[in-house]
């Protein structure tokens, strides 16, 4: 039985015959055979020469989350007549699936997501690299100054690898951030200083501090200020 995670919590169990469960699918016009029970991203990652799917909120050590959406690819389940966008890190390989990882539409979507991330985190090296690769120049919006892209890898690493839960994602929407309970600056006993969170962080927003505990990403420009910059003053209507 192979377990593949479909989302943060759900999984499917796939029966393996003689330890091998072959699934035939087409990726970027190349017909390949992979073992079942994997997601597209996992399957493709082990086969060099097939499309390079970028991913930010994905790490092999933790369950996939599907938050950054940059791994989006086009798939067709009906032999190629209709395609739709899915996240490669979550979508399971299926017999007869047709996957396209680098079409113009996919690149356009990735470019858009990178522009949004670059607006939020203009000084993060990983995002700058992606921006250069996909031809994103200056974002059309007011720039923020965050380091954290809210991928949730640190939170998941703490929960799934260490079985602790010292930090979590709090608030919702644009006010979302990684924080310790009650926004404490110093992490309590729940944090054992293992450093997994800093290790999996794709942007370096979490770093280990001098006391052996991680320093959480600071919200550099408070959102209230950004809101005010965008709105200038409150707007009314009739």
């Amino acid at each position: 039985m192979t377990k593949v995670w479909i989302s943060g919590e759900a999984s499917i169990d796939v029966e393996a015959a003689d330890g091998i469960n072959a699934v035939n699918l087409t990726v970027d016009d190349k017909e390949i055979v992979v073992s079942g029970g994997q997601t597209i991203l996992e399957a493709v990652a082990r086969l060099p020469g097939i499309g390079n799917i970028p991913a930010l909120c994905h790490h092999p050590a933790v369950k996939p989350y599907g938050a950054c959406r940059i791994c989006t690819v086009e798939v067709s389940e009906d032999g190629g007549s209709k395609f739709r966008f899915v996240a490669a890190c979550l979508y399971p390989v299926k017999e007869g699936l047709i996957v396209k990882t680098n079409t113009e539409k996919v690149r356009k979507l990735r470019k858009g997501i990178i522009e949004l991330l670059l607006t939020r985190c203009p000084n993060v090296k990983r995002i700058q690299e992606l921006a250069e690769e996909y031809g994103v120049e200056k974002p059309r919006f007011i720039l923020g100054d965050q380091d954290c892209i809210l991928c949730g890898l640190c939170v998941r690493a703490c929960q799934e690898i260490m079985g602790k839960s010292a930090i979590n994602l709090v608030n919702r929407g644009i006010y979302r951030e990684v924080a310790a309970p009650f926004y404490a600056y110093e992490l309590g006993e729940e944090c054992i200083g293992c450093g997994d969170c800093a290790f999996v962080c794709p942007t370096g927003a979490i770093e280990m501090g001098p006391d052996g505990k991680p320093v959480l990403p600071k919200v550099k420009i408070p959102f209230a200020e950004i809101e005010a910059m965008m709105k200038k003053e409150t707007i009314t209507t009739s």
Partner: protein
Amino acid sequence: MVEQVRKLLENRVTSVAELEALRKSILQKRDQSRTCISICGGTGCRAAGAEEILEAFYEEIEKRELQLQVELKETGCHGFCEQGPIAVIGPKKIFYRRLKPEDVPEIISETVLKGKIIERLLYVDPTTGEKITYEADVPFYKSQTRAILSANGEIDPTDIEDYIARGGYSALCKALFQMSPESVIEEVKKSGLRGRGGGGFPTGRKWESCRQASSDIKYVICNADEGDPGAYQDRSLLEGNPHAILEGMLIGAYAIGSHRGFLYVRNEYPLAVRHARIAIEQAMDYGLLGENILGSGFDFTVMINKGGGAFVCGESSALMASLEGKIGEPKAKYIHMSEKGLWDKPSLLNNVKTWANVPLIINKGADWYTGFGTAGSTGTMIFSLVGKINNTGLVEVPMGITLRKMIYDIGGGIPNGKKFKAVQTGGPSGGCIPEQYLDTPVDFDELSELGSMMGSGAMIVMDEDTCMVDVARYFIEFLKGESCGKCVPCREGLNRMSEVLNNIAHGKAKREDLDTLEDLAGILGDGALCALGKTAANPVMSTLRYFRDEYLAHIDDKKCPAGVCRELIQYSIDPDKCEGCGRCLRSCPTGAISGEKKQVHTLDPEKCIKCGACYDVCKFNAVIKV
């Protein structure tokens, strides 16, 4: 102790025969000669003073010792909210509206005791000037097909016997004893019922895939997290006729093989929660919920969960997450909820209106149901008709009725002689439909073609004083506040859309910003994780499609033609209309208005912050927007 147990068991029915006997005895017990006064007790009418009216009736009846002749019943929402508080005096059902407590003694002495009509309390048809006496003749009701809502005016939702007296739970009997689970599913499939919560997914197919999923444990969920602004049909149904939903859930649970149900109600609906709780308790009391229902061997219990104030929890996977005690984060649905949902078990989630349709379909048959509506959208649909419309309220019509008929025949048209501009359907996932499409039949697929959608059924009418750029901005701000924040396209994309729309509304935008809006809409539609994000750009795109010139006016001319966007309008006082009463002066927070008593007042634009207070309070329409 024996007494208590006996009382508990007294109500219990353990077979169909016993239920029928109970039904008969309830009907016999009811004194048909009593005059029944039914007062609308929906939240809307309560806000307008229905509770004081009820009190006044109680007092008057006590005072005159008329308890044996008069029956007073507080029902759910009657639907004609514009005319509340409402009382219907039967059996002829005389329709009195806009009541005040002072009217009550006269109603008792004249109408109840002497059969005389009180003219001033009657509804006046604005097109003919005619006074309408009976409920059935009120044009608002006459043009509707109130298959589900008609019960709202006749049932006391806190009394299960009212529901049983009207034939309640007979559909359950039919399903449990005369139909197999598969044939129940067949009937629902044949009826063509589609989800009334927004997705419009064929209900029968959903039930079938849930039945086919193999698991000992399956769940049935009622989504009453009605979050679309302007929609309140689900609330009124739960407040006014909770047993209809319970009966639907029971039938659904039987069909798929589930024994546990959840009723997820929005936190902001305390009355609906209260009435649902009472209904569940009474149903358990009477043996219609619990173990071995009616002796069929089938068990089913329902638990109520309240929402926490998050619109995103109306999305099925986010709803289930919050039922599991987690935050309302949606997840990718590459495997359907009907196979792996709540706690990874097959879960059947349907909207309140969908469940309410089920007992009707089982009782009257799929053929009856397909008699209403269009081929692709069968049955009736309950809409909330709100905004710039004369007859605000809940409207139940067969699918396929035209928008024009809804807005003008039933809705009574636009108030104050203003011109119709657009009707917004589908809530924050839908779009605005302009005048040239008013003859479109209301149908799932037709509305999607126009760039909107059916959604949960909110229909918001807008007139010439509504700015479509402002409407788009409003919906994006709403979604921005409700986004769970998990995925980049929604969290960041909505934020930037808000930035661009605010620039347009402030007159600080360029033509390229319209291209930016389209790009952002593409990112949201293709990249977002859940339906909230995927459909978030619909209001913007549809207003851009049909009202592009309004956007251009804001961008090129820095003007807001409808006179709404604060930065682009200027208030001024018309000297010909101003009576010098000083109300505007007193209401102005910055002292921008000056003038002597009984002299024409003037407004200083330098000090004006455009709050609109003077515009609101002036009784002579002397404050104008230039």
